[in-house]
């Protein structure tokens, strides 16, 4: 079994500067949409799902591309995702337990 050393850096496909800028553009766009949606009365009824989806998209973009999770070794994704899912689960459970979802 070959020895791994620090010199064997796994080849990471680095995003180009243009790609980073494009992602920044998308992030800005999404933020504008979020704020816009907030001000549009028609959206008030389903503000939560729309906004949560939009910010989840921003979250994913930053984590996958700026933090390189998408191109890095899967292990890092596992180390991050497990506690993240736990935190989400705990938050949802607490919301239920404190009756936030009830009427």
């Amino acid at each position, binding site marked *: 079994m070959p*020895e*791994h*050393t*620090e*010199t*064997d*850096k*796994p080849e990471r496909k*680095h995003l180009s*500067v243009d790609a*980073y*800028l494009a*992602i*920044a553009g998308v*992030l*800005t766009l999404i*933020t504008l949409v*979020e*704020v816009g949606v*907030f001000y549009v009365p028609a959206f008030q009824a389903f*503000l*939560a799902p729309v*906004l*949560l989806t*939009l*910010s989840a998209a*921003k*979250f994913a973009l*930053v*984590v996958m591309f*700026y*933090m*390189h999770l998408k191109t890095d*070794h899967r*292990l*890092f994704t596992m*180390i*991050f995702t*497990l*506690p*993240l899912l*736990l*935190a*989400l689960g*705990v*938050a949802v459970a*607490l*919301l239920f337990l*404190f009756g*936030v979802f009830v009427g």
Partner: protein
Amino acid sequence: MMSHAAAHYTSTGLDSRKMAFWAFIGSECLLFGSLISTYLVYKGRSVVGPTTHEILNIPVTSVSTFDLLMSSLAMVLALSAVERGDKIWARGWLATTALLGLVFLGFQAYEFTTFVHEGLKLDTNLFGSTFFVLTGFHGGHVAIGVLWLLTLLVRSFMGKLGPDKALNVEIAGLYWHFVDVVWIVIFTVVYLLQ
């Protein structure tokens, strides 16, 4: 001959410091998760005092949110520059990231003092307590991040931030982006979903 190869051996081929930092970020998910959960659970239950509708300033906070997003861009460009060995742009982008971070902190300071003047303090009501502790913890994290970035900037000026030190910048970037990502959640959950 030193057994350095043995000393740097890893089972996964991945850097231990980077792995450690992702583990730390994992624990931070629970830290901020608890703070945000508490905010959500207590939303709308304040008995007295100003609440979200009366006091949160969406336009101003949208600007500060945009500022923090752009700081993430600056950070990722800084890492790129360090990896290329481009000293000028490395210093430029590191300084920009730190500056944008300071701007964000400025916005926070402005917001906090405005709120206090408008009658919302830490101890005023549930909203004051949950809001200030949540955003205060976040701001504290940003402040530490700014110090970290300035340290890297100084190291760069000392000629000690070459491409071989790119991992240090990458890890600082992981911290910075995570702090940004937490703000993405806070902006939505506290400001937009009032």
